[in-house]
């Protein structure tokens, strides 16, 4: 399993109510855009001991929460590793979901880059990160996979997940175009400005927005990215 057996610790049998236990402040902690690595290893059954998938790389990430304790270099290193850990878990969840659905993970780029990609059928889902692994508190990851790319929002556990899912779909659709993610080469890595501009509008400071389609389009029209292009 992706979660690994080592981290499967049962809770104590004490009554708990997450919603009542103090203030649960909803927010998005991070956005991650990453590759899903190479093709899945030949071993059909991914067990808990399965090595991390080959080369899953973060292409762009943005963290919204304040860094934790420690020296600046250490804080930065931790944040980078946390985001990579999220990318790895998304990759693993995506493989398991694809396998369960009986689809061989088709991670190759499409034959025709102009082919419209349907995000409705794209594999995606939700999973939880336990406290301490890799963030200090619990978190819920909303993810979406489009061809060889993973998109993920790391949310506080009581975030409006339906809203997070539709925001992520909207972001993915726009980023695919703005970063030319389906084109050949790795141009996306050199288009951080476009990613920043989109996120600043559709997910400002990690705030999920209730936006109708018309409002989202209006926001996009304001993006400065086009000014210089």
């Amino acid at each position, binding site marked *: *399993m*992706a*979660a690994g057996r080592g981290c*499967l610790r*049962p809770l104590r049998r004490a009554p*708990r*109510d997450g*919603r009542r236990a103090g*203030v649960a*402040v909803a*927010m998005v902690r991070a956005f991650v855009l990453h590759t899903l690595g190479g093709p899945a290893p030949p071993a*059909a*059954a991914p067990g808990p001991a399965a090595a991390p998938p080959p*080369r899953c*790389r973060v*292409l762009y990430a943005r*963290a919204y*929460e*304040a*860094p934790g304790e420690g020296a*600046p*270099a250490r804080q*930065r*290193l931790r944040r980078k*590793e946390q985001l990579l850990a999220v990318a790895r878990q998304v990759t693993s*969840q995506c493989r398991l979901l694809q396998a*369960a*659905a*009986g689809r061989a993970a088709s991670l*190759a780029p499409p034959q025709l880059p102009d082919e419209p990609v349907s995000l409705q059928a794209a594999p995606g*889902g*939700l*999973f*939880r990160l336990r406290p301490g692994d890799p963030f200090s508190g619990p978190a819920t990851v909303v993810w979406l996979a489009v061809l*060889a790319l993973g998109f993920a929002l790391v949310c*506080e556990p009581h975030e*409006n997940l339906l809203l997070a*899912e*539709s925001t992520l779909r*909207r972001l993915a659709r726009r980023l695919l175009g703005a970063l030319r993610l389906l084109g*050949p080469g*790795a141009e996306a*890595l*050199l288009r*951080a*400005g476009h990613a*920043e501009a989109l996120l600043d509008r559709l997910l*400002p*400071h*990690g*705030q999920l*927005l*209730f936006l*109708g*389609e*018309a*409002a*989202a389009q*209006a926001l996009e029209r304001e993006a400065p990215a086009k000014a*210089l292009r």
Partner: protein
Amino acid sequence: MFTAAAEGLLKQAREIPEEELGRFVSHVAALLQGRDAGAEAVDCLQRLHLVVAATKYPRTLDGKFVELLQTVLCSPKYPEQVQVLCAAILREMSPCNELILSCDDVQDTKLLSLISSILLAQGDKKAEVSAVAQRVVKVLEGRLPEGQSFRHILPVLSNVISISPVSLAEEQINVVSKKMVDWLRYASTQQGVPQPSGGFFSNPRARQPGPVTEVDGAIATDFFTVLSLAQHYTEDQWLNMQAFSMLRKWLLCYGGEGLSTPNSDDRSEMDGSVISMVSTTSTSSHLLPPKERLREKAFEYCQRLIEQSNRRALKKADGELQKACLIEAVTILDIICKQDSSYVYRTLSSLKILHSRISGDVAFARALLPLAQFFLNHSETAAVDSDAVYKHLFTEIPAQLFHNPSLAFEFIQFCKDNSQLFTDTSSIFRQSFPNLFKFLAWNSPSLISEFVDLLPFLLDAGTAIEIFHLLLDLPCLTAALDIQLRSTSLSASEKAACDPAVKPATCLEAFRHPLYKSMFQYLLRVEAAPEDSPERLIPLRQLLGSLASSPRVVQCAETVPVLLELFFSVVAEFADKPLINQLVLLVLQRSDQLYETSAFKDDVYRVLSSQLLTLCKLHPALLVELSKELLEFLASVNNIRNKEALFTHMVWAIGEYMSVSYDKRCTVEQINRFFEALEATLFEITQLRPLASIPNYAPRVITVLMTTLTKLASRSQDLIPRVSLFLSKMRMFVQSPAVTSVYCEEDREEILNRATELMNLLKMPSVAQFVFTPPVDVATTAFQRDANESLPFALRIVSRLLEGGAGFMPG
């Protein structure tokens, strides 16, 4: 391939030599300081961003250049995209010591937003969070310069609250609360005017924009909300959207009982022209303190969203937004009612109506969870019976929507958040656990970790047996759900094609066949059925065997060992002796009735056998109480062949716990009966037949059988000659050509050594009895805790004593 290209570029960026980077940075600096920082500057800044972002180790840039980035960021003469990139690079370097940025005098809201994003990434060493909070509130309080908008800084405020809610003073909270009321309730209901392009063909007398519309295209009937549509939006409409987006967070942080002081002058100027259906029902609220006033406006807003979610959206994305709004509205109403119970009655009645409206529509299923949460939190206050809501949620939804991964995840989160519900044995929640397992069976990779948390709450003396069966049948359940799902997509004629007289050829046919129908129904039951007998599933398990290699079934099967281990560790905490006996019998019985996939069976046997030992240790008297069944199990050589682990552990447990020191009822006759059964088994598997080849049993079985026989003989000493004779024959056994061809040298040596040691031990019966039967009260000391460890040690001591070894040092 994209991945390979990205890989190459990332490597380049990570490994760029300092010198080259230095040259590049100087080039960028020159561009930024030049007259026109245009497209090339943007390209270079993006490249630089990659160089900084690609490595997880600190990337130090020249101090002067970092300063320049900050200057450019704050200077209005640069294009926005350059500023955005400067901010992104500074953020990527964060936490960063060379920062001289401050938000103190920033008036421009866009710039304040950019600077805040950098400051908030610093980790609050210099109280940056508070500084940002103070500045943002200050700007919000003041008059906005021409061309500026609050909407750039409202999300900053939201982020600040998340990071540190204590950054705002009570007075500031009141100021923002008053603003929120205005933004939420009094946004314009006319559409915005498009920005004039100023071109030659632009018409200065463009059409007047019309009123905003509802999602179905009708003209809005009440105040503006996030579900009101327009071609262009006005500033206050944007603020309305942002205010609602952060409303829940705001209420959670500042809506409760605080230091709020009533202030009779708290009266916002408002646009009285808005005719509100909802607001006319509320009391006059101008005199309320800001927090309470905001609560009331939030209540009205949520009620309006609930009304609006009933409209049929023209665009799919808007339909999705309706559902997300509904979830948010119900959650906010829950918070409001927690903070002020006087809202409970009004809210309950409208949410009851909402429930009856959406409960039949699976598209709204996810909204049922916050609804149920609301009823759970407030039904008691209002003395309203909401059992029908819970019953619908727990019986209908998992059965229909187990294959929706997001709903499955949220449903299980809901159960975890409300785990106290499962402690009431008669409750509908508790009764519906078979339904909850459907979520796990279908979505095991994403839910296993959640179920590890949930399972302990589902378990007690009343449910343990049924859950034990459910866990062992979990892969079967996955297969059955697969069939169920495929069956629902069959056409009516295909469904009718089933002939009850003919034996079904496929699982899909069997699903409707009278022979299997009731078995499927039992496996797919929505509520607990403790009286029902799981034996009836035997034919169904065989039938579903054809799906055993399906990836989803395999994934599910992999989760079972983890849950089984958890099951036993939880059950051990409360199980009484009759329950333990029952479980041991079930372990033996179900070991023959498992879903047929070899990896699954091996895993399950491994867990069951180690748990069998735990149960025997908890309640050693079970060996006497269940002697008939255990003897039956041990008498079958087939059990060694098929379930070696289970058999060996059982034999070991008998040697360990079949003793009068654990149970007074353990008579010599009892010991003799077990001895004879095990002796016959050992005889059978070590018997040399002239023609037949030796079946290859694990050497562990032979050594454990020998050890157990010796242990039993030490407690019924008439048996000592018999076992000694048997052990002495083992030399002949291991040396026979038939055996050497099957067992390797090491194994044979191990068998022989063990036989010799045991024989030596039996030469001193009283020592043997002492070694093999530690008194119960010392059985838990460190030395004896793991008998597997201590026994070989004891055997070695005795062997050396007998051999008269000189210079023997214990330890």
